[in-house]
């Protein structure tokens, strides 16, 4: 069971109160977790990754075990603490803007 923490606006959109818990089939990577997330919450499609390019939106970041995995790490196997549910995968909206 993988735990995912969404930014506040996306929790509102998906109508979830706290963390999301997901089962991921096969390898657990950021991409496969996002695929499972969007499958369960279709309204999140396009909000984290661009519909066409599938690239991360510039103001969304991925944090794994206190490390920034936003760049070139989306196909890397997630570490054991995230896969086991001990640590969550953090999806973070940049603290910026007006």
């Amino acid at each position: 069971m993988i735990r995912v923490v969404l930014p506040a606006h996306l929790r509102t959109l998906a109508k979830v109160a706290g963390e999301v818990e997901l089962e991921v089939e096969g390898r657990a990577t950021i991409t496969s977790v996002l695929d499972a997330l969007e499958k369960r919450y279709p309204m999140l499609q396009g909000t984290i990754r661009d519909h066409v390019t599938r690239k991360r939106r510039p103001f969304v970041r991925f944090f794994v075990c206190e490390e920034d995995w936003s760049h070139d790490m989306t196909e890397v196997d997630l570490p054991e603490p995230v896969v086991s549910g001990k640590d969550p995968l953090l999806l973070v909206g940049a603290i910026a803007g007006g």
Partner: protein
Amino acid sequence: MSQVRVLVGTKKGAFILTADGKRDKWEVTGPHFAGWELYHLKGSPADPNRIYASQSSGWFGQLIQRSNDGGKTWEPVDNKFVYDGIPGTHQWYDGTPHPWEFKRVWHLEPSLTDPDTVYAGVEDAAIFRSADGGKSWNELSGLRGHGSGPRWQPGAGGMCLHTLILDPTNPQRIYIAISAAGAFRTDDGGVTWKPINQGLRSAQIPDPNADVGHCVHHVAMHPSRPDVLFMQKHWDIMRSDNAGELWREVSGNLPTDFGFVIDVHAHEPETIYVVPIKSDSEHFPPEGKLRVYRSRTGGEEWEPLTKGLPQSDCYVNVYRDAMAVDSMESCGIYFGTTGGQVYASADSGDSWAPIVRDLPAVLSVEVQTLA
């Protein structure tokens, strides 16, 4: 008794303002979609309980929300706006080719007859259509692909398709406008399009009489006369009496003819409204006086409307989709400002009062007149 519902999109959410036919006591609900930019909301003329809303943010992109109960509850529908085929390029600010990239929906225009059909005007400029209540979107790519697209260039606010007008007498005819490409018309339901910019003159561009490249800010039409169009261009108030084939300037005695909004009285097709703004480098009313100008002659002769509007130290702007009219017997006029006020007049503009004063910056105002 009739009721009026005002749909207000702001920089930080949507608000719905309702009143009875007297329009003197207003109930305000919201913010809906708190924290998001609501570029536009509009109700279906065929089913007033059906409302579409464009919700977006710099963080999480574009969403489309739909209500089936007059804005009490909402559901997200499809937000996948994918250009047809290979998008190609338009001009960037420096004149170099720049790939077409979807950014946001500026305007939603529900069909006049079918609540499930709705058009979306988007940035980078294109028109999309949904025939299933927003569950899927398809581009009417004849506009973007009609030939001049590679020469289109963004205005300062982005290359947005911000105006979308459906002809009530001819379902095949649609008018659109793009900053800064100009106005276009289709006569075959969106398959093919032609620029309708003859007569526009924009001193700031290399060829001031070019067929495209004009920064059209907004266009308005009275439903009883769909061949007559009124335009607020970057500078100049323009009028066409032949469906956009030729335009002539009707700025007349306005203190400045820069501005964003333009609209037409619900029952008097020659009565039009603008809010003059000082200049393209100073986006606020001249002399700090917020004045709506009304022409009862279809342009040229204008009178300032000031009763109830701030006449000193007012430095707000009024964005292009932030004026609307109701169709009550005594026509109501509404506009929203970047200072968060929504002003209403229940007497065709003779007197004004704020419905609300302290919303986030207002991006759009639409009105529904309910039986």
